């Protein structure tokens, strides 16, 4: 709730696919739940973070993992400032679908959307099917930031979300995002303090394939 406090707010939307609910839960609640409910529809998460002494609220949208969810994903891209593109390092097929997801994300978002590539389940190194180098190469080729995370051990989870938020924030400061256009996923929050206009940014993160969460 945005009442009362003069905290600039940035919201982030995540549409994830692979271990997405776990990733989100790790970020928002700092816990790992090996058995997570099957997501029906969209679930939501939010967390306040601090960037440059500014309180920013990330709003995260986590869609159901049902395959070929693209049509709904698209409508969320449109309202998102950022996206996490997530695949499962233990399942090559989820990596193979990245191109498609990326194209979709690029096509249906505004051109400034920040996209980060995440290879999740880095704790399961013994079952790894996708090499780290492959992820890096894909990210380099498409101009994405890359990171391997583990929702289970929390490795890099914080960094993944916060780095994405930071990049969005920088873009806002550079004036790349029009904060008055909500289609960019950024919404001016309640203005309670002079000069401290709240910034709400919707960052979408699109997941790769594969509903199997963890």
């Amino acid at each position: 709730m945005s009442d009362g406090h003069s905290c600039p707010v940035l919201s982030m939307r995540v549409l994830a696919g692979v271990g997405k609910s776990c990733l989100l839960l790790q970020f928002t609640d700092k816990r790992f739940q090996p058995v997570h409910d099957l997501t029906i529809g969209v679930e939501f998460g939010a967390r306040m973070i601090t960037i440059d002494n500014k309180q920013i609220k990330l709003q995260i949208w986590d869609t159901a993992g049902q395959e070929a969810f693209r049509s709904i994903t698209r409508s969320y891209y449109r309202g998102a400032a950022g996206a996490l593109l997530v695949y499962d390092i233990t399942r090559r097929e989820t990596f193979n679908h990245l191109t498609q997801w990326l194209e979709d994300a690029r096509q249906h978002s505004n051109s400034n959307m920040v996209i980060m590539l995440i290879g999740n389940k880095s704790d399961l190194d013994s079952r790894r099917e996708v090499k780290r180098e492959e992820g890096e190469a894909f990210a380099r080729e498409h101009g994405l930031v890359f990171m391997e995370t583990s929702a289970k051990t929390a490795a890099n989870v914080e960094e993944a979300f916060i780095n994405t938020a930071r990049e969005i924030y920088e873009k806002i400061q550079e004036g790349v995002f029009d904060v008055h256009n909500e289609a960019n996923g950024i919404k001016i929050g309640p203005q309670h303090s002079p000069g401290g206009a709240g910034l709400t940014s919707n960052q979408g993160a699109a997941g790769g394939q594969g509903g199997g969460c963890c």
Partner: protein
Amino acid sequence: MAASLTTATPSRDAVRIKVIQHSECEVDSQCCRFSVDPELTGYEVLRNLIARAFDLKGDYQTCYLARDDRFPEACWVPLLSDFDLEMAFVKSADPYLLVRVDLMSSNGTWEAVTSMDIPKLSLPDLPKNNYSVKLPGLFKEKMEKTLSAVQKVLSWNEEGEDTVRPARPPLTDSEFQQMLNGVGQLAHPKELRLCVYHGGLEPSLRKVVWKHLLNVYPEGLTGRERLDYMKQKTKEYEGLKAVWQEHLQNEELVSEEVKYVTNMVRKDVLRTDRHHPYFSGPDDNANIQSLSNILTTYALHHPSVGYCQGMSDLASPLLVTMRDEAQAYVCFCALMARVHSNFHIDGVAMTLKFQHLTEALIFYDEEYYTYLRLHQADDLLFCYRWLLLELKREFAFDDALHMLEVLWSSLPPDPPEETLPLLEVQFNPVKVERPVPPPTPRQNHFANVCALRRQRSSLSNRSAECLAAILSRRAASMECDGPEYTAGVKKLSRTWSQPIDTSQVRARVPSGETAMTVDKIREESSSPEDSPSRNTRKIKNLREFQLLTKVRDSDSDSNPGSPLKEKTICKKSKDTNTKLTSHPKTANSSRRCFSDSDATDVGVPVYSDGGEVDVWQNPVATLSPEVDQHLQIVCQEEKPSNVQQLVPKANGEHKQAEEEGANQNTMTASVNSCEEVTEVTGWQVTMSDGGSPHVTSLLPPEEFGGGNPFLMFLCVTLLLQHRNHIIKNKMDHNELAMYFDKMVRQHNVTKVLGHARRMFENYLKLDFSKIRSKTTPPGSSNDHSC
């Protein structure tokens, strides 16, 4: 995160809470820790959490350890309200908020089982449910007293809680036996439902009675016949299962479809109710495999439905209750016969439910709706799970069993004619050459519903007008729907009081079929290619449906330019279920075939081929026989006048329809995906000639909520219960959705059912015939109080 914790500002996003429990009669105290979002957690929510964490069965008080810089000595301060809790969060939450729970009761009956312990009790047949209905009932009654004080302050319920009627105690075995006659036939099906509706069932009775409530048995079976029937069904199921299981073992022949379905199902059953002892433990738990078998068998033998996420949630309570895979499958088929349309890819049935829920909310609490509209939450998308799973996940598992049986009992009995079909079409994996449409990516009904509803919300200032337009047209349409309305009212008002003649029951359609009622339906003429019993009807008014069906219109209609062209609706009646002759075409052309590797056909709807079963069933056609009988048997005196009314008003209606049709020419002619649905916005402008979003009437029970009116009242109750908290905290769409997400499995079943029952009963008292004649504006302020 760390920063916000150390500064202890109110804007932190999580507060750690440690709860310790003291009891007068127990020496040892317990403690548990958890984190909450201070912005989302009110006093009531916290109490709920605590009650669940400690499985409290009695009244209790809470206090917290107050820490203040000025007073170094910490002291216990009562925690009695939202205000107290807010202060506690602000002042005393560093490093964690320490809450003490003092049990009030001296009987010491509370169970010291925390929720964390439950999964460890992995004995599948543990008779753990024996106390679970009675004691929580007692506890909740007590708790309600406590909560009523809070609620009076919040005043979401103007009547106050003291008017809560004590629910009937759960139906016992001996009571049930009295409803059977000498040979074990169920002699009093309506009384059975009435009792269960008011009080639920003793858990031990569920295995037997659920099959009656779910309409598994044809009418009139004796006890012996029921046993034989289930034996027969079990055998049938084993056969159906064997088909795909043998097929799966044949490495060379195994089709992509079987692989796909089994993989999808596998992923989902591993995430379904795993906290329940029945499904806990390792992933190779045999019960999980059973659940998977049920869903796979259903999906492969019901090609028009297939497998969709959410089905595992529906099947799980059935399996847990039946403790038998085959019997659970039979129950699942019976349940799906009513709700399968919710899973159809076009999202039509879900959209209809959303629309009715919106109308109900406007009807009962316009101010609340206006609030939601202002906060872009009027699409109510956060209720999606509620509607799809019929609230199964909104209550703790055992509470959900209770809620489900009450919900099923609110529906009139609807036994299968001769036998419950366990398949739509035989799955035949060997015939690989069958004409399969090019694989399309799996469209999601949620996607469609979302696109449609978001579209409204995004133009929220228009959506009210658009809704008003819909409603005003509905008012007009009611004039021509006279007999059905009458019949509906009579039917429902008599559901509990008067045994219906067997012939009527046989003529009755499954309630799931009547679920597909539209706002405006008008008989036009008989379609030449349809059987005589099927009619061609035009369906207007429901914009979403129009948009969606336009696709098929443009495929099949020779006159695609007119948005008002005749729409042929296939009446999907029982014979389509029982006579397989009608299926091959359906099955082949609409069998969903998905492929992960397919990446090109993005957004192509699966319903574009003409052979698919139309989920939009014709309620007039399906109701007609019954309508007639009712008119003759039940309300003969009303029949003539209504029929006379019907004719002229139908004509007037026709004119209006054409005018509307002219307006709709601005609409895009075809909608190929929800992507495009989202972009078709022209129609909203054409509809903006309405007034304020005031709903003066609700649909009659056989239409409302797609034939499940009580579900609407349960949902409205959930919405209303949190109304003041939501408004007070100025929650926006996201926050609302998160708030309700976090309430998963935490709603108070007794309270919700009690309130919903009251609303439902008052709703049934509404005089729908008056609404129909439009002589007086109904649903005025005296109805407003639920």
